[in-house]
């Protein structure tokens, strides 16, 4: 069972097949339900219980930082482009797009006949205002870094938008699918960040931050094969046990972030399906490459070999994940290196050998962790310290307060725990956290060859050449990088058997790429 879960691009179907083969009856659905899932039906109110959401959430697209805000946003807004369940880029508000030969100028054709919930027709001005909201000196948006490369946006007629970049970027349309960059109505050339008006599948009836959001289907939605529910109720239920109880007692239909310690109990409940998707979310331990002893690559390699990845996946993720190979590109990505790079495993002798290369017999290190980085980070630190002892590495685990972790510990202390939701493209992931000098380069790693490849691959439009370059970059991060990437964590959700999902559930974000409201239905 664990084996099948760690597979790539896991779908509910493949779980079903695996479960059937192994005779694990818990996951098998009645045949009638499987047949029903092929043909979406309309109707019903979907009640979603999410493990995020707080009273300080807001409608401002620059501030969406948790899955509650993101699912809420994706239910009421559309984006220029959309990433489908297979990871491919699909048109959404942009009907089509094309790049100049150097990939530095992008022309988007905007879909005709799309209206906002307020009735306003969508045109190029709305798209420009929506993107501009995140740009510029005074931007308070968390998405500012990803639109920084834009030098100019202008309309060419009422339904064409031309974007100029400071350098070629073959993945630019992918970036436009980012959850922050929702297309919102423009007024006097700017969007209103306090408005819930969008052009998405559901119209917001009420929103009380930290309590609930209610939505009804947008009767004028331009996609005819989507948005099957009559309405959506989105509830923040932060306590893990409360969330499971709400599902078991039938007060919600879907929950996310199933508690991995009790998932086996949830599986026993009848009328509930556990849904696990291997995505790009990964847990990491960056080492400050500027500071001794991590400035010596031998020490970093010793540490990388002293981590028992299988054990971490088994004990911290309860099997709901897969081992990492010290690079951040997941099997859900297009250019994942696959067999081209050998899987790194726990090897105390090799770790010792690397320490010797660094001129050391043993070494004292301190790892600063908190469950703010990811659930189980403290336990993961303890497991690492036990296993690395055999290699002569004395790892002291220092538990930091969760509150203020990102401002006081992360990127301040030399060896910490952190996580990434992953990015849909290799370039996006690398240039966010691994390129020299970028804001979120959490290990302060610099590598000239890597930067050069990254720049070259970004403006390269030939996919075979790009693959070659990205595989080499993954190798560089794996063997010279300063981040231990031991595991990819699956998105584990659960839903009542009344809810049907598509055959493939998107692995790019939790809740079917945040699109649960638009893609699922009641069987």
């Amino acid at each position, binding site marked *: 069972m664990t084996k099948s879960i760690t597979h790539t691009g896991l779908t509910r179907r493949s779980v079903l097949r695996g479960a059937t083969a192994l005779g694990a009856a818990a996951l098998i659905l009645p045949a009638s339900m499987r047949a029903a899932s092929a043909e979406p039906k309309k109707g019903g109110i979907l009640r979603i219980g999410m493990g995020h959401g707080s*009273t*300080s959430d807001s409608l401002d697209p620059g501030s969406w930082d948790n899955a509650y805000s993101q699912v809420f946003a994706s239910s009421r807004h559309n984006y220029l482009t959309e990433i489908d369940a297979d990871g491919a880029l699909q048109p959404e508000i942009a009907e089509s797009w094309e790049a100049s030969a150097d990939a530095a100028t992008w022309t988007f054709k905007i879909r005709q006949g799309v209206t906002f919930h307020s009735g306003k027709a969508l045109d190029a001005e709305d798209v420009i205002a929506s993107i501009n909201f995140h740009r510029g*000196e005074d931007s308070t948006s968390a998405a500012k870094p990803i639109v920084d490369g834009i030098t100019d946006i202008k309309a060419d007629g009422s339904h064409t938008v031309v974007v100029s970049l400071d350098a070629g970027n073959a993945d630019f349309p992918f970036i436009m699918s980012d959850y922050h960059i929702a297309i919102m109505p423009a007024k006097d050339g700017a969007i209103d960040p*306090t408005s819930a008006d969008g052009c998405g599948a559901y119209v917001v009836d009420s929103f009380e*931050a930290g309590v609930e959001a209610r939505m009804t289907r947008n009767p004028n939605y331009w996609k005819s094969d989507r948005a099957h529910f009559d309405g959506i109720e989105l509830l923040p239920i932060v306590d893990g046990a409360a969330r499971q109880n709400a599902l078991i*007692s039938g007060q919600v239909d879907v929950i996310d972030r199933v508690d991995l310690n009790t998932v086996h109990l949830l599986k026993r409940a009848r009328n509930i399906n556990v849904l696990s998707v291997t995505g790009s979310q990964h847990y990491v331990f960056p080492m400050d490459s500027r500071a001794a002893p991590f400035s010596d690559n031998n020490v970093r390699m010793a540490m990388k070999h002293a981590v028992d990845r299988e054990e971490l996946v088994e004990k911290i993720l309860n099997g709901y994940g897969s081992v990492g190979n010290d690079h951040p590109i997941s099997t859900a990505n297009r250019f994942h290196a696959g067999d081209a790079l050998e899987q790194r495993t726990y090897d105390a002798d090799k770790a010792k050998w690397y320490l010797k290369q660094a001129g050391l017999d043993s070494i004292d290190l301190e790892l600063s962790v908190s469950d703010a980085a990811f659930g189980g980070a403290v336990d993961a630190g303890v497991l690492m310290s036990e296993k690395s002892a055999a290699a002569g590495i004395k790892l002291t685990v220092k538990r930091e307060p969760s509150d*203020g972790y990102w*401002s006081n510990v992360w990127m301040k202390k030399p060896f910490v725990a952190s996580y990434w939701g992953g990015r849909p493209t290799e370039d996006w992931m690398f240039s966010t956290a691994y390129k020299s000098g970028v804001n*979120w380069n959490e290990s302060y790693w610099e590598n000239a060859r890597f930067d050069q490849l990254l720049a070259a691959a970004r403006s390269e439009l030939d996919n075979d050449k790009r693959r070659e370059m990205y595989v080499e970059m993954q190798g560089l991060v794996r063997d010279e990088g300063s981040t231990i990437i031991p595991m990819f964590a699956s998105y584990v959700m659960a839903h009542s058997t009344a809810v049907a999902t598509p055959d493939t559930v998107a692995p790019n974000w939790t809740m079917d790429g945040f699109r649960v409201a638009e893609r699922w239905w009641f069987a």
Partner: protein
Amino acid sequence: MAHVWRMIAQRLALGFLTLFVVSLLIFGATELLPGDFAEAILGQSATPETIAAIRRELGLDQPFHTRYVSWLSSVLQGDFGKSLANQQPVIELISKRLGNTLFLALYAAAMAVPLALILGILAALFRNSVFDRMSNALALTSISFPEFFVAYILILWFAQTGYFPSIVRLSSGISFGESLYRSFLPALTLTLVVTAHMMRMTRAALINLLASPYIEMARLKGMSPMRVILRHALPNALAPIINVVALNLAYLITGVVVVEVVFVYPGLGQLMVDSVSRRDIPVVQAVALIFASAYVLLNLTADVLSTLSNPRLMHRR
């Protein structure tokens, strides 16, 4: 009677002073916490430029005393400002939550206070009997478990079996009876948590008095034990009982975060916790002031009632 009014006036004035000190403490304490709103809201996505932009926009780049004075002056004019996080007026955010919190507190109090008094009186009456021992043991058991454990047990018994909902959704437009039904489990949890304290205080105060000579006299006159307790002992035991009831009522308003989290109850406690973790100071300030006011007012009420219950205190020498 006049000096009761004077006491109320004095205590109210002192209460305002307390609130002022509380606001200063809260403002200072949040200042000491790592990071500010700009860093808290951006979390891992923080970059120096966006942090600076948010601080500029919200005036967080001003020094501590400037922000405090401008906040205080608007509060004195009745304006609690806007939430940093979602720009909604703080009053609006709080009013509904405060209503929910008071509803739950009163609901729990309506069950817990009579229950505690009755159990306490009966326990005193039949002290050292099986009833006394059982009610003490039960009350102590429920108060000894952490709140969330009591809550989970109740969910296991009453929610997973389908009798009551495990999460409380108080949308507007539901009837009072429906609200009572939906909030039953959190109210019951709180009842179990606070009853022991009040019950044991009632019992102890009564037993203490039952040893007094005037009770002995009443007994010798041949009064029934129930009448001795209700007519002669209870009025004299009221002062400590009122105080412990007030203390527990204050707890029901201010200390129920865990219960709110487990039952997803939309009360003030959760608002406070969220706002502290986001460093949303205007909201933290306002909620803290409400909590402090609850303590001040309930203590004042307890003092006044204790005074009224004791004729000797009514007539100063």
